[in-house]
């Protein structure tokens, strides 16, 4: 049962959130100039890292804000969080 620090609400139990997938995949800034390969990569290719991973979570039963979370997949440690359009501390 993770404790996730929402940038707006503070530390909340994971039951208030839904997982939103890999946050290293960013929707193309200029979709018209995006190649098939880039689309393919954006839609289908996902790393499955053993260790640190940046992912989206949605505080769906809270403030309804999306956030970026850096989580260690081996320990479940939440290392840092940020708003969805913000930058994570390294």
């Amino acid at each position, binding site marked *: *049962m*993770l*404790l996730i620090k929402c940038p707006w609400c503070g530390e909340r*139990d994971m039951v208030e959130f*839904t997982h*939103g997938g890999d*946050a290293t995949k*960013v*929707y193309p800034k200029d*979709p*018209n100039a*995006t190649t*098939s390969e880039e*689309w393919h990569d*954006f*839609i*289908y290719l996902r790393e499955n890292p053993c260790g640190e991973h940046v992912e*989206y979570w*949605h505080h*769906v039963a809270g403030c*309804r*804000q*999306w956030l970026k979370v850096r989580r260690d997949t081996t*320990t*479940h440690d*939440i290392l840092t969080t940020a*708003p*969805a*359009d913000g930058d994570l501390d390294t």
Partner: protein
Amino acid sequence: MTGQPWRLENGGHIDRSCSLSFAFDGKIMEGHPGDTLASALLANGTHLVGRSFKYHRPRGIFSAGVEEPNALVELRTGNRQEPNSLATTTELFDGLEASSQNRWPNLRFDFSQANGALSRFLPAGFYYKTFMWPANLWLTYEHFIRKAAGMGIASRESDPDRYESRSAHCDVLVVGGGPAGLTAAMTAAEIGERVIVLEQAPHFGGWLRREKRTIDGSPAMDWVDAVSTRLSAMADVRVLTRTSAFGYYDHNMITAVERVQDHVPKSDPFLPRQRLWSIRAKRVVLATGAVEQPIAFPENDRPGVMLAGAARTYINEYGVLPGRMAVLQTNNDNAYRSAIDLLDAGARVTAVLDVRDHVDGHLPNQVRDRGVPILQGYGVVETKGYFAIRQVLARPLVGGPVRRYDCDLLCVSGGWAPQVHLHSQSGGKVVFDAEKGCFLPSEARQNCVSIGSAAGLFTLKDCLKGANGDDVPEQAIKPTWSLPNAPGRHGKRFVDFQDDVTAEDVALAHREGYVSVEHLKRYTTLGMGTDQGKTSNVIGLAIMAKLKGQNIPAVGTTKFRPPYTAVSMGAMAGRAVGHHFQPLRRSPMDNWHHDNGCKWVDAGLWRRPHFYTRPGEDVNSAALREGRTVRAGVGIVDVSTLGKIDIQGPDAAELLNRIYVNGWKKLAVGKARYGVMLREDGMAYDDGTTSRLSENHFIMTTTTANAGPVLAKLEYYLQAVWPELRVQVACVTDQYAAIAVAGPKSRDVMQRLIDLDISNDAFPFMAAAPCCFAGIAGARLFRISFSGELAYEINVPADYGQAAWNALLETGREDGVGVYGIEAMSAFRIEKGHVAGPEINGQTTIGDLGLGGLQSEQKHNIGKSLAIREGLIDPARPAVVGLVPVDGKTWIKAGAQLVENPDAPPPVAMLGHVTSIAYSGELNHPIALALLSGGKERAGEELYAAFPLRNEAVRVRVVSPHFVDPDGERMRV
């Protein structure tokens, strides 16, 4: 006290002034408050409490706590019957009914005891091997095995008790209320920390209740009472007894179950039976103690074989003599406390067998001084007795003559295992301490610390602070896991009593190559019982280590997993049972539907009127009648469940442009438009109408199923992808009641209720406007049609939904207004060829759905680039078509496969499948929508809709999916 021949005159924390009556296998017995079921049974001279799982061997009470592998009983009867309850932790109450398990027809005569003789057919890995044999052999054995195995019988009735769950937070959570836990809790409480203390037993004290110890010269329990009383009175301390911490999860979350009313004869209806706690602690102190380990010697499972610590527990805590003539088998000094307590209680101790060669400790010498022979370097090689032990055969470990000792109790101690389960569950590592002969907690991964016996610190000096216990020096333990059979003998040496796993099974697993401890566990089922191997895991892996010629650290241990002790399903479910299993969403007109004979259908969490019954009608005839009312005049349907998302801001139209395939910038204020959105991979996702209420204000509708996901998606794009867009979105589904009013007379009815001119000129098809409806302010009117008829949708604030519904029925009475449910609504949409969930199934593109023309070429939208991938624009892709039965009457089954020849030898080429079916009231025959390869190119072809599960094949003709009013003239009049 004649009824309790084994009850001692004095001692124990029981109330002899009060007698409790209970039944075991129908036999009425008596005990006292403070007893467990096990102690009361022993007081009545009953050691034999069950049959073993696999061999049906008679088994007795082995321990005095949660580690009990044998004394599993069924408690209570009827709807409260509960199997696999531990007699050793079940508090006795007046009227308790218990019965033994794994026996038929009764405990003393068990039909399957012959299975003991068949044991060569039930070796380790039996289930695996049987499954790997030819399958038909398994079928032969299954009946026999299922009957012989099994662990008690649960009630088939629903549980009448209430369970609840609670959350709590604290600075310090102390698990365990023995000397170490109480000391830690008091230390934390004294500096003002918010403390929670959990104790699984009914009372604090731990082993201090079970031994005659002193602290500061007084009985140790005086200290326990003083500290626990003081703790209970402190404002920021919560003490919970009868509460077992069973799981340690991420981020210092501990789950515990509090048995609020398991021990009371008649439950208080205002209290739950059990309470599940989820506790988030800043720091966790694990003072979970240690569990005594046995030694696996031949024939070690007879009733009357008991852990040494349990024997003195029955004397000291419960005032029960577990035997009158005892033998002790040990490898440590500590177990001699049991010999001393047995002697003090008036029992004989005929011999102590100690595997150590030189025994000269403080406690052994006390025993020796009282005339008890201590046989050094000795071990048990055999035991005699069937329903109860009566003799022990012992032999020097180095070989030599066998000695025989009569006894009715054989105490065994192989040392102590710190309860590192929670530490391990939390991610902490454990290390084997060769000197102490046990696993100890090492590096913690979370903010927790193990103390006292749980950390392998077994003296009071290690547990107490500011008080002094009566520790005595002890000689070193000699780690010992199993003892050999005498030459030529093959007595079973049980490692795991509950799963009937023997040392020989471990050896067999080793021979067959199952040498990893995780594999050993699964292959032999070692440690997989409800006791989680608390008295067997270490022995099992020690035996494996020896066979491999390795030491224990090299072999390692299996991962400890929750739950530490068994937890009832009721506690897990809590209040989420029956109607509360999941929330039920009701439309604002729910009561009316219920009162007017509607049959419900689930739509996600919602319930929606499926149809309204009249005498003699089934779903089809009711839906047909409801549909005809609409086609002929006017009908109303509750569409409140459709998702409604309020979208506001200067960039609202831009957002819609990026979400929907079609364009939105030019949509005029006061107009609605049908829109389709795609997933990022180009597949169709959801559809609905969205209306422009003002320049910067739209109201979007979604399907009922996707209301939540679409909102979450919009939030995602606005927050993560396009934060520059000045738009806010909000779900307003629950804020509005929505009613569709359909049929040629709908305008007549609506006009009488509304403050707008809704003539076709003033309010044409796809118009939208705020209005006052039936006196209800804040309403919104949309001229949209799902039915294909002239139709309107009216939204009113949710609290006025019933008023609006009533007004429509009242005003429309002279026009014969009717109500219809979603079965009729679904038939309308199939007649019109409108796609819905069965067609927008995640595998279809807008082209497949016949909606390709909506795609705007002027802009980008989500999914657009990927929707034009080669495979998604292949003309051979299945596309939506209509189907009619060639005979004009046979129903086509939803899910049926479309084939050219159903009788062709397999594999038969599947051309598509039937998605939606209905009976068309307009055409008077069944119709269907299907996804068919080649789509409308096949119009006019005849195929078969094959349903092999029912051996049916209906001859169908491919037609346009627009069965009724294909040009949409009716809704535009």
